[in-house]
């Protein structure tokens, strides 16, 4: 049974399929495994942070720090691998615990000091990037056999597309994210929090624990995205991924999650990511847009998607009213 609540998700999936078909009809080479593989590989880090962002936004919050955390993670890894003999796996564990703690700290501040997430994570954004600068302003290359090994893990599809490890990590993240959101008590608490913190509290939702976990999750996933990004570029660079938080937010919103919190889908975010990737691919295939027209077109397409979604949702919910009533006693 298709539930009315799943409508935004459906709309997103449909939008993506239609858009992909349209692009394909214009540039047939877009319908290759290369492009599909690129969509997965190139957006892997963005997808991973967007999963965390989905949780944050469903809970009614926002996390502006993720872009900086990715950059920090990259620089941290690069510096650690350059200056110590730590194995990358150990370094991964170290950096993940750092970013989880960072997220948890922001969550704790948001809850215990009763401050808006927007501002707390904005300060977090300054801090994480500032720390990355302090570690190194230079971009630091990562050269380690283990990195080479991880990068060599890919499956080359007919047609030249390479499905890489990072893409798989993203898909796994989405899968786990979906299960967490819909099938665990934690996930239910996240939705409850987004429905109204005061009410959720009266209903017995542990606010402190949930808030802290949400931001810890987002921080941890930003750390994971940072690891993936460092695999992607084999380097750590303090100026990397500026503004990624806005891309992630846009993807989450295009995916049908409401910024006011309470409703949304992790799976929708996945298609949001694909739609954003598709827009970029299309612009490059076109190749005639100047720098400024690129910006205008991206903004315009963003607007078009939001409008399309709005329209479809309106059209389909206008007549929706439950038919059941009190059963005759």
């Amino acid at each position, binding site marked *: 049974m298709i539930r009315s609540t799943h409508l935004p998700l459906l709309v997103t999936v449909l939008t993506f399929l239609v858009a992909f078909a349209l692009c394909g009809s214009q540039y047939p080479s877009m319908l290759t495994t290369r*492009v599909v593989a690129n969509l997965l*590989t190139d957006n892997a880090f963005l997808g991973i942070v967007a999963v965390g962002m989905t949780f944050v936004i469903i809970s009614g919050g926002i996390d502006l720090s993720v872009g900086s955390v990715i950059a920090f993670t990259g620089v941290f890894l690069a510096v650690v691998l350059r200056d110590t003999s730590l194995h990358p796996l150990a370094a991964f564990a170290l950096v993940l615990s750092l970013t989880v703690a960072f997220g948890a700290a922001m969550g704790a501040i948001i809850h215990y000091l009763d401050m808006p997430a927007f501002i707390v994570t904005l300060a977090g954004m300054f801090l994480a990037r500032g720390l990355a600068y302090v570690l190194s302003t230079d*971009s*630091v290359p990562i050269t380690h056999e283990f990195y080479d090994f991880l990068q060599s893990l890919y499956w080359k599809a007919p047609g030249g597309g390479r499905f890489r490890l990072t893409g798989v990590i993203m898909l796994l993240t989405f899968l786990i994210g979906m299960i967490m959101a819909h099938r665990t008590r934690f996930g239910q608490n996240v939705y409850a929090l987004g429905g109204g913190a005061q009410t959720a509290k009266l209903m017995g939702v542990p606010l402190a624990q949930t808030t802290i976990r949400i931001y810890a999750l987002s921080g941890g996933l930003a750390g994971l995205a940072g690891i993936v990004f460092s695999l992607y570029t084999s*380097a750590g660079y303090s100026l990397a991924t*500026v503004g990624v938080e806005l891309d992630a937010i846009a993807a989450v919103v295009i995916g049908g999650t409401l910024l006011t919190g309470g409703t949304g889908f992790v799976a929708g975010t996945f298609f949001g990511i694909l739609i954003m990737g598709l827009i970029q691919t299309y612009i490059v295939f076109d190749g005639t847009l100047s720098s400024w027209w690129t910006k205008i077109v991206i903004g315009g397409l963003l607007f078009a998607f939001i409008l399309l979604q709005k329209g479809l949702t309106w059209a389909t919910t206008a007549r929706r009213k439950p038919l059941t009533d009190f059963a005759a006693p």
Partner: protein
Amino acid sequence: TIGFSQIGSESGWRAAETTVTKQEAEKRGIDLKFADAQQKQENQIKALRSFIAQGVDAILLAPVVATGWDEVLEEAKEAEIPVMLLDRTVDAPEDLYMTAVTSDLVHEGKVAGDWLQDEMAGADCSIVELQGTTGSSPAIDRKKGFEEGISDASNLKIIRSQTGDFTRSQGKVVMESFLKAEGGANICALYAHNDDMAVGAIQAIKEAGLKPGEDIKIVSIDSVPDIHLAMASGEANATIELTPNMAGPALDALEAYLADGTVPPKWIQTESKLYTLKDDNQAIYELKKDLGY
């Protein structure tokens, strides 16, 4: 068909480079696919991958940062698409790209340092420095080069150094605070990592009631039209040119390679030409002002 992955349009110089590249491509009858990365490396990698998927004949890449290109360049190599680097090289094995047309950023800084050393001729001089965006490679290299240039002159000393983000307005703001923190009379020279910041700083100096170019010597890098205008009226002293025409040599090399397999050198260095007040700056301004800076 050639794909061109440009960093963005963050400065006038960058816009000029884009314009010139498009002109050069047109001149040679090349169909240029342009992709603007909005200052993000990830977007550049995406663009490169899309170019490969599209099957372009060659790729021009102006990399935003030196690291992180191995993987995608390997894919290009495998697809037998030659890659030419513009204005910056990358930290990748040399066989992954055909050639790099760049200036030497460290050298630029050194030229500036040397010029100042000559200009001061042994007199004591406290220098303030306007850095580029923290972490960007021009900022790092131009700082390094300048320090090298003045390292052998004990009379030259950098007393304050702060970032002006390569922008005119930050250049002005930071210069204002330099002037107050050190006192205008105690500053003898300004070194700015690009001309835009220098232009902003000139205004700050004037507003503080000092004469830029005389009370405070000004040397900067890029040679954009507005700095020549300032030099023409004696408000700035020297600039080092960074040519926006990187694509010309690159495309020449590419054509030669395609024609008879001439393998170009790995590094084609553009000239870092020093302009001073001795040049006819008004004329240079007129020459440059329509180049899309």
